[in-house]
Each structure stands twice: as structure tokens, then as C-alpha cells.
């Protein structure tokens, strides 16, 4: 034995247990057993003990192999699940896209057939009403307001992402309402046409327009009267965002465009109000929220 054998005194674990552990990591039992063997003279170890020791080694090897395989099996499983989910998302996205294309084509056909079937003045009235409601593709001159997230700021201590440099649903709502107020006739956000019942909401950190997740920078296109650009440019909303550009690094720009094409919104989901059973004279529970004006 190279290390000095500590005398097998009884109070082995003093208060300074950790120092002891670092100094002499060998199980003190080995030294005790060696001392005992020496005391009663050398004797060959009994066979059964050696078999038990062999069995212990066997079980240790078994344990190592099992643990290794278990860890190995766990890792690709997680990655596989993740990959599968990504594949599913991509597949669903493409199928949604093809279905949307088909819907647009069929919608165009329906419109064409209907225009052919309805006499002239009636069709014109319908067209105007549809365009105003957002259910018909419209073209015209207007402006595009682009707003994007500022540089990502992460708190170095807590690791939290600073959300004040992000565009929020509130920002898009403010801009859209300002555009309506300045006389815009049709508005779309990143190609999603807004109607009177459209929603602009925050889900987690993503902005959803009519439950479609949007990715920044956000382009708000609006078709309206000729002075729309000037009116919006002078509005307090535009002013406050120009301030945010300086303060938080958001991107914000207004540009006039000719011949903007705004797509039609998906066909509305019709909701029917059902009268209450009890005839209480309470104010009518309106189910359809009346949104921005045309």
C-alpha cells in the first residue's frame, strides 16, 4: 500500500468530512479488511465470495450497457418527434396553400357567373357593396405603411427578451384605425384583407390577423382617397411611431403606391343570432361586433 494507511480509529467521520474525502477517497473498509486478514494470517478467499464478486462485476457491466443504450435510445427519439412535427407543419401548410388557391379560383368563377346572371345595375351595386365589405378583390392607388421589429434586446442577467422593441397587435390596430379614420376604403395586412369583423390579436409573441399568424415586417396596404398619404403622414399615430423609431429602433415607413391590388377576404362565417327564451327586457345581446367604418 503506497498511501499511508490511516489507523482504523473509530471516529472516522469528523466534522471535516469533505477534506477527509478528498485526501483519502478509498473506502476505509478495504484497509480494515486488509488489517483483519493480516491479523488472522493469510487465507485463500472462499470460492463463493469470489463467485459473488464475479456476479457483481457482471451486473455492473450489465448496468453500464443498459444505461448506455437507454440514453442512446432517448436522444434520437426526441429529435425524431421534433422532425416529425416540423414535417407535419410543412405538409399542412402546403395543403392549406393549395386549398386557398383553389378557393380563390372558385370564388372568381362564382363571381363571374353571378355577374353574368344578374342584370347590369344590380350587379354593379353588388360589386360596390362587396368591395366595401372586403369580400371582393380591389385595385386602386393608395399607400403602404411598413412597420417592423427593432433590434432584439436580451437582458444579460435574466435572459429575458425585451418586448418593447417588438411590434405589438396594438400598434397594427392603431395604424389600421388611423387609416380607416383618414378615409381608407380597403386595407390589408401582409396580404390579409380586413373586413368589419377582422381581428388583430397577440397569441404568445405572434400577431394573428383573423387567426392567421403574421411574420414581420408588417405591410399595411390601404387604398383610399388621394390625400390619404398626407393625412396619415400628419396624423399623431404616424408621429408617435416616428418617435418610436428614434427611441426603440423600430422600422416605420410610409410610401405612396399606384395600382395596389388587395385580395378579397375569405368568405364570412355566417352566425345567426337566436332569440333568448326568456322575454326579459334586457338590451339585445349583440353577437356581431361592429368594427371600423368603410
Amino acid at each position, binding site marked *: 500500500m*503506497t498511501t499511508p494507511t490511516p489507523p482504523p480509529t473509530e471516529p472516522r467521520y469528523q466534522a471535516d468530512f469533505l477534506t477527509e474525502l478528498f485526501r483519502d477517497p478509498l473506502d476505509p473498509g478495504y484497509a480494515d479488511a486488509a488489517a483483519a486478514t493480516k491479523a488472522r494470517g493469510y487465507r485463500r478467499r472462499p470460492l463463493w465470495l469470489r463467485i459473488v464478486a464475479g456476479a457483481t462485476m457482471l451486473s455492473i*457491466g450489465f448496468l453500464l450497457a443498459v444505461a448506455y443504450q437507454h440514453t442512446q435510445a432517448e436522444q434520437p427519439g426526441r429529435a425524431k418527434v421534433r422532425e416529425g412535427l416540423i414535417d407535419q407543419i410543412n405538409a399542412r401548410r402546403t395543403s392549406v396553400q393549395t386549398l386557398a388557391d383553389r378557393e380563390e379560383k372558385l370564388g372568381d368563377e362564382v363571381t363571374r357567373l353571378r355577374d353574368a346572371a344578374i342584370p347590369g345595375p344590380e350587379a354593379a351595386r353588388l360589386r360596390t357593396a362587396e368591395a366595401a365589405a372586403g369580400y371582393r378583390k380591389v385595385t386602386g392607388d393608395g399607400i403602404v405603411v411598413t412597420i417592423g421589429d427593432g433590434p432584439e434586446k436580451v437582458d444579460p442577467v435574466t435572459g429575458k427578451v425585451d418586448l418593447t422593441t417588438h411590434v405589438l397587435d396594438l400598434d397594427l390596430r392603431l395604424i389600421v384605425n388611423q387609416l380607416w379614420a383618414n378615409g381608407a376604403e380597403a386595407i390589408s395586412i401582409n396580404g390579409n384583407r380586413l373586413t368589419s369583423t377582422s381581428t388583430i390579436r397577440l397569441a404568445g409573441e405572434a400577431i394573428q390577423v383573423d387567426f392567421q399568424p403574421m411574420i414581420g415586417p408588417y405591410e399595411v396596404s390601404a387604398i383610399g382617397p388621394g390625400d390619404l398619404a398626407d393625412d396619415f403622414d400628419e396624423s399623431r399615430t404616424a408621429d408617435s411611431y416616428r418617435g418610436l423609431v428614434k427611441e426603440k429602433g423600430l422600422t416605420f415607413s410610409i410610401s405612396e403606391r399606384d395600382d395596389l391590388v388587395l385580395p378579397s377576404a375569405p368568405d364570412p362565417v355566417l352566425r345567426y343570432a337566436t332569440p333568448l327564451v326568456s322575454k326579459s327586457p334586457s338590451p339585445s345581446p349583440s353577437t356581431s361586433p361592429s368594427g371600423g367604418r368603410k
Partner: protein
Amino acid sequence: MIAVLALIVGVVLGIVLDPTVPVALQPYLPIAVVAALDAVFGGVRAKLDGVFDDKQFVISFISNVLVAGLIVYLGDQLGVGGQLSTGVVVVLGVRIFGNVAAIRRHLFRA
């Protein structure tokens, strides 16, 4: 010699049989591995020191695994399972490191 053979046979058995670990025992598997490694390195060092004892080795392995598992189980019940596992790994890791250092001194005289 027998011990090394037994270890290899154990590894082969584990690979061939490929048993599934019950879900309840899965959190204890890494701790059991560390405890077993501690017993193995302690045994190797004792062998080189010339004080190897079969009984001591068997008992140290079984008690290591059982006590380590028990500590982690207790920690899980008290809500500090992660911290206690870390504690077990640190203590056993220190011992493994010390024993490996002693083995190294034996083998390379350095």
C-alpha cells in the same frame, strides 16, 4: 482476470438482451451508474494497493447503489431530487477522481 471477463460478459448481455427500463426506475439509472463506477474504481485501486477484498467490494457496490438511489428517492419526495442527485454525483465523482488518481500513480509511478 475473472472480474474483467465478468464485466465484459455483463456488457455483452446488456447489449444482447436490451431490456427496457421500467419508467419508475429511469431517474435512478444515471445515479446507479455513477455509484457502480465508484465501486469499480475503488475495487481496482484496492487491487493495486494489494488490499482487495471480495466481500468489501460486493457490499460497497450494493450499498452504494442502494444508498444513492435512496437519497435521490428521498430528494424526489422532498422536492429537492435534482439538487440531491447533484450532491450524490459530486461526492461520488470526487471519490472516482481520487481513486483514478491513485490508480494512475500505481500504473505510471507519477
